[in-house]
């Protein structure tokens, strides 16, 4: 889990001004979505179309997950978890904004154009992220799978031949490292707590596990991208190893469910996404062209 991060090129984009935003979403001088939007507007960020498609997938995963986590705020089992889930949601939203700003540069669109004015079938999120929150155990199961996938993904992507993808991933991997720790600790706690929490944790994993398969499916786009992207299937062995070790420590079996067929990368989504998007997009669509 603590594989050292490969730090490649310090990119020309990582020049954020930490004082620019009142509530400091991004501490330090890390790359901010605003920097990417600026680079896009100035024409210095111009992803190849297939890179943009790839960034759209990762951005949509993170955006949908952030939206789900945003639903938890003021409903957590402890105030500390309101803070933690809000923090993780904010991190995911930050990753989403970076990926979407970059993707949008290929088509002359902003992050908000992409988030608010695409139809459901134009989203590229995987089904895992679309799953409803359920109880706290189900959310932790989804977080555990998401982070166990995103951590090695971003770690490898930080060596991408595309400097912007590499820069976004290099920032994201540090945050996802914390998300993985948070969900791992809760998985162990719930599995080893009371009979009820153990039953709920196992049920949460059962609920979310069918959506693991889709995350590791290769397709023509990932094959075409070469060194710019991470081949999804190449991460599966590590995912199985790291999740297997945690589940073994928790005394839980790896759920044996058949994998769901997925389809999110082709715009075929779960029943849940439509509601999520309807809520997210309603105000922006009521005032098209308005600025906020």
């Amino acid at each position, binding site marked *: 889990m603590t594989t050292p991060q490969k730090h490649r090129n310090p990119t020309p984009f990582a020049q954020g001004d930490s004082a620019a*935003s*009142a*509530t400091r*979403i991004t501490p330090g001088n890390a790359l901010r*979505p*605003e920097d990417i939007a600026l680079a896009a507007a100035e024409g210095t960020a111009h992803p190849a179309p297939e890179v943009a498609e790839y960034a759209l997938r990762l951005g949509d995963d993170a*955006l949908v997950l*952030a*939206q789900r986590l*945003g*639903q938890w*705020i*003021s*409903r*957590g*089992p*402890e*105030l*500390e*978890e*309101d*803070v933690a889930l*809000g*923090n993780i*949601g*904010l991190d995911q*939203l*930050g990753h*989403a*904004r970076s990926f*979407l700003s970059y993707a949008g540069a290929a088509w002359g669109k902003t*992050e*908000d154009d992409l*988030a*608010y004015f695409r139809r459901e079938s134009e989203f590229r999120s995987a089904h895992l992220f679309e799953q409803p929150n359920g*109880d*706290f155990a189900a959310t932790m199961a989804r977080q555990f799978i998401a982070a166990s996938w995103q951590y090695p993904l971003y770690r490898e992507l930080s060596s991408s031949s595309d400097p912007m993808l590499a820069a976004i991933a290099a920032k994201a991997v540090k945050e996802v490292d914390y998300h993985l720790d948070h969900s791992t600790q809760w998985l*162990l*706690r*719930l599995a*080893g*707590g*009371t009979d*009820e*929490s153990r039953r*709920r944790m196992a049920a949460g994993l059962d609920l979310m596990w069918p959506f693991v398969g889709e995350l590791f499916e290769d397709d023509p786009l990932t094959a075409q991208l070469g060194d710019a992207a991470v081949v999804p299937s190449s991460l599966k062995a590590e995912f199985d190893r790291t999740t297997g070790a945690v589940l073994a420590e928790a005394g839980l079996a790896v759920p044996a469910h058949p994998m769901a067929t997925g389809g999110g990368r082709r715009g075929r989504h779960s029943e849940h996404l439509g509601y999520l998007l309807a*809520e*997210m997009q*309603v*105000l*922006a669509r009521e*005032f098209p062209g*308005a*600025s*906020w």
Partner: protein
Amino acid sequence: MPELMGDDAGQAYFDAVIARDSRVEPTDWMPPEYRHALIRQMSQHAHSEIIGMQPEANWITRAPSLKRKAILMAKVQDEAGHGLYLYSATETLGITRDAMMAQLLAGKARYSSIFNYPAVTWADMGAIGWMVDGAAITNQVPLCRASYGPYARAMVRICKEESFHQRQGFEILLELSHGTPAQKAMAQDAVNRWYGPSLMMFGPPDADSPNSSQSMAWNIKRFGNDELRSRFVGMLVEQARVLELELPDPDVRLNPETGKWEHGPLDWAEFKDVLAGRGPCNAQRMERRRAAHDGGAWVREAAAAYAAKQAARAGKEAA
């Protein structure tokens, strides 16, 4: 050391601390009434932060841009942090967070009445930041000099973050008031609805404020309700001009003789109604808090059971 004093010596010591406008610390002797008044005020403040998350959480999933969504999430998260910080500061007076939460859920402790109004449009995110947080800051800046050390120190940090929040609220309204006519109308409507309730956040006029004078004698409260309200009105007047929005009060004026800002009559009957539980959202706010608390009980029990097992295991290994 002062803790070990008898009541007479303790009272003398306490009186001297107050007289030289110094700080009382958790281990110091303090009159029981002072302790109770602080527990009441500080826990009410903490509860307000926690309940106050709800009207804004209502718009996180619908925020109209991703940047606004991020800022709003960060803000609501700050409020949870303020609640935690204030509960901890209150615990130094000898009450647990669990006990305070139980008082809130039992209806024995209050939270600020302002959160019993609904946040029905996006512009309410602006009005709450600009007016509600603005009123809170006006109230809280003097609390940075409150006589109880942990409270005063908590307020220093909280005020810094609140002033960010207020600026963000102002910025939301500024964007709306310079947007389309429909956006501007949305902003004006929100200002109209939040103006009266935010002015009433300072509490009843001094003449009807039962706890004020004792609180001022103890150097907890530094200024009367009416003085703070007047300062707040002055701030609103100037900033409303920049926003190009109207305050829904034709009687607002700077009294040239007193140099104080004055406002029109406020609906104190409504204030009392909301305080008595008859506001639009009283039941909803409490129900949400109760649902989160009760729904999370199994998680807290699991965490406690797990920690106990880990401790037992560590004990066995050490033996």
